[in-house]
């Protein structure tokens, strides 16, 4: 079947088994390999992308569920005002070690800050608690968020 996907500002007509999880279409058909497969079980957050401004896990939900939604992946965030600020803050804080969890984290943080420009610590934790990082970059991710918030409130 054909599905229409809006990804990173471009419309794509995708031929796929409608039961295919979104992540495989993004990675293998559109070459957006920044989106990471960590568990395929909606347990780790690695596969997070933004759909209509909200963060969603892409490893189980099927491509047909995204017909017509506007998807932004980690690759698309560079052209996104807030997303690119979040990326710069992650770089400035060296908020990644192996980086495998990072695209999911960056996408989640961007979705969080678009909804709540000045989140409290408990709100940040709630947003990120579904994301696992085995390298232990957590404190740096907190700092990156603080950096974006400070930048935006000084702007």
């Amino acid at each position, binding site marked *: 079947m054909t599905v229409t996907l809006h990804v990173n500002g471009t419309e794509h007509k995708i031929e796929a088994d409608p039961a295919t999880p979104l992540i495989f279409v993004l990675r293998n058909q559109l070459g957006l390999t920044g989106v*990471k497969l960590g568990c395929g079980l909606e*347990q780790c957050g690695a596969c997070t992308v933004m759909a209509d401004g909200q963060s969603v896990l892409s490893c189980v939900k099927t491509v047909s569920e995204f017909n017509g939604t506007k998807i932004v992946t980690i690759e698309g965030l560079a052209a996104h005002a807030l997303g690119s600020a979040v990326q710069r803050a992650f770089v400035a804080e060296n908020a990644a070690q192996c980086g495998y969890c990072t695209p999911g984290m960056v996408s989640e943080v961007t979705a969080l800050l678009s909804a709540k420009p000045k989140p409290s610590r408990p709100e940040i934790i709630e947003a990120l608690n579904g*994301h696992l990082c085995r390298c232990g970059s957590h404190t740096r991710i907190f700092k990156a968020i603080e950096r974006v918030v400070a930048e935006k409130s000084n702007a």
Partner: protein
Amino acid sequence: MPNGSLVKQPNLDQWLAIGADGRVLVRTGKVDIGQRISTALTLIAAEELDIDPTRIDIAAVETDVAPDEGVTSGSNSMEESGDAVRRATATARKHLLALAARQLGVAEDALDIVDGLIRARATNRSITYAELAGGKPFGIPVDQTAKTKDPKSFKHVGTRVTARGMADLVGGSAKYVHDMQMPGMLHARVVRPPHYHATLAKLDDAKFKSAGLGIVRDGSFLAVAGPDEYAVLKGAERLAAAATWDRGKGLPEGDLFKNLTANERVSLPVIKGSPVKEAVPALPAPPANAAVTHQARYERPYNMHGTIGPSAALAKFENGQMTVWTHSQGIYVLREAMAEALDMPIEAIRVIHAIGAGCYGHNGADDVALDAALVARANPGKPVLLKWTRDDEHAWEPYTTAMVMELQASLDASGKVLAWSHESYGDTHNMRPRSTGNKSGAARLLAARYLADPVPPPVATPSMGHHVGIHRNQEPLYTFDNQRLVKNLVRGLPLRTSAMRTLGAYANVFALESFIDELAEAGGLDPIALRIRNLADQRAIDVIEACNTALNRDKKPAGYGRGFGFARYKNQKTYCAVGIEVSVNDAAEVKLHRCVIAADAGEIVDRDGIAAQMEGGVLQAASWTLYEEVKYDRDGITSRDWDSYPILRFDNVPEIETILMERPGAPFLGAGEASSGPAAGAIANAIKDATGLRLRRLPFTPEAIRAAAYR
């Protein structure tokens, strides 16, 4: 001391090349696994060559091209590769200055270097590195004694920089093995037995409806391959349903911790950090002048590496040649083991490193490389990208062994330790695919044992090196009198094990540092003072004091506990002290509030990189300590996803303050594994301080805390 990597690869061209465009290419045998070794090497090369770091490239690590520096493990990379690159670049600098002096007709000491441009001060004439040596081999050996820069003039080494490749990681453009795509590429998945000892009895081909999918079967090794990843995934599920396994007796059952000290074992005394093949001395009676004698037993379960990205490899078999892209930590050792497993000559195999998710030791990385090669061999000419699933990684990676530590010590009234005994029990930490001939490398790759012509798993032998395996950090850095150290390699344990970050050091330091606090309490002494009373090494005392001062800067909040732990990794690498503040809530959950790390890693190269390793080490160890235990039963592993094997999440991350000691000019000390053991000791001691409960079996779950409270 001569650098071993340079002894093996003595020529400057094996380490360094200057391009015609003036870019500098640094070669290393160590792979970047998120620990930022490539950042550190860049800083070292930039410093010695006086060139901007952005003009330095780090070569991809590939067999026959990269220096053979063994495995990227054991916190050895800075001492081996870091030091080698420093001496190589210092040699190159000297050589380039001599060439320039001749060309410019002045003495060497009349020259300055600014970003790869050598200028004669008097005449202002200049020449670049590229003009002198661009695109040409140096053709000289590395001078192991070449003079290196005075730390006082450092411009790059020791600064805080953005890690190499950080923007690519954050931007999603970094290419992991998992992300490689090639024309005609097949995806593949393995269908695994229900547990280690099951064999494939029957495959009902009629049940497996294949649409464009190929099956690879060799004995009990079963895989499916095809061009579409999702179709392969579904195909693997159908193939699993079509397979009937002979389950045999299943995994050995029984009380793990009882078996650890009851099973048959090889016991060896450990003298000054190394085992000796002698009889184990009996535990002597406490000395007559002992004021206090105390004993305790500590236990740690099996833990897993738990990479966030399950292991993957890409393999291509063409014209009798196998090329493998892998995130293994040891490309040369993997090549040898694969040659044995595939019955191919070593020269016919090329192994190329590509980045993977953090591995923290010997996880599924090497195993998946053989899996991919087996599927590639059955599909000549087609690249095969084989990814383990979450279930594969959780259930099949080589875990770190469960361990038991039994300690006993006597103290005089002044706090001097008069006698000390520490026995450690566990399975092997040493199953990396290193070959010592006779297919011993192949035997350590998972798939080899399931082939029609199987290579059975090897019987572990006790590691005899200094501070390795079960006895890593068993020898205290403290100056205790009458030390009795024993390692026990235990037979008949149920799970497959190998090297995980710190090997036995995490468990040994957890036990040692918990026990010192117990001793202090028994003797009515301050635990920090007791440590310092028994230390002669001033650098150790310095990190302990720095950490303790920062931890106790302000008053401890009511109901909170503070705890402390210290070790020098392998007694020869980074010194690290960890202080932690915790509380235990009504749900018996341990909450981590604040953490102070003080570390002495010798001369600091990548300042923020060392801090990241220290912090990451603490958070990972906190996760092992509070949450993690691999569970299993007769039918196999039951910790098969993140629900059944929970790890640390954002809701329990403390504030971390990291203090690095300044030691310019001192040798580099490996840092990647230094904070894990101290963190475990600190958490155990902090829980005791907060609740009065002394916990001796990891992990410290709410169930464990409740059980201790009601004991």
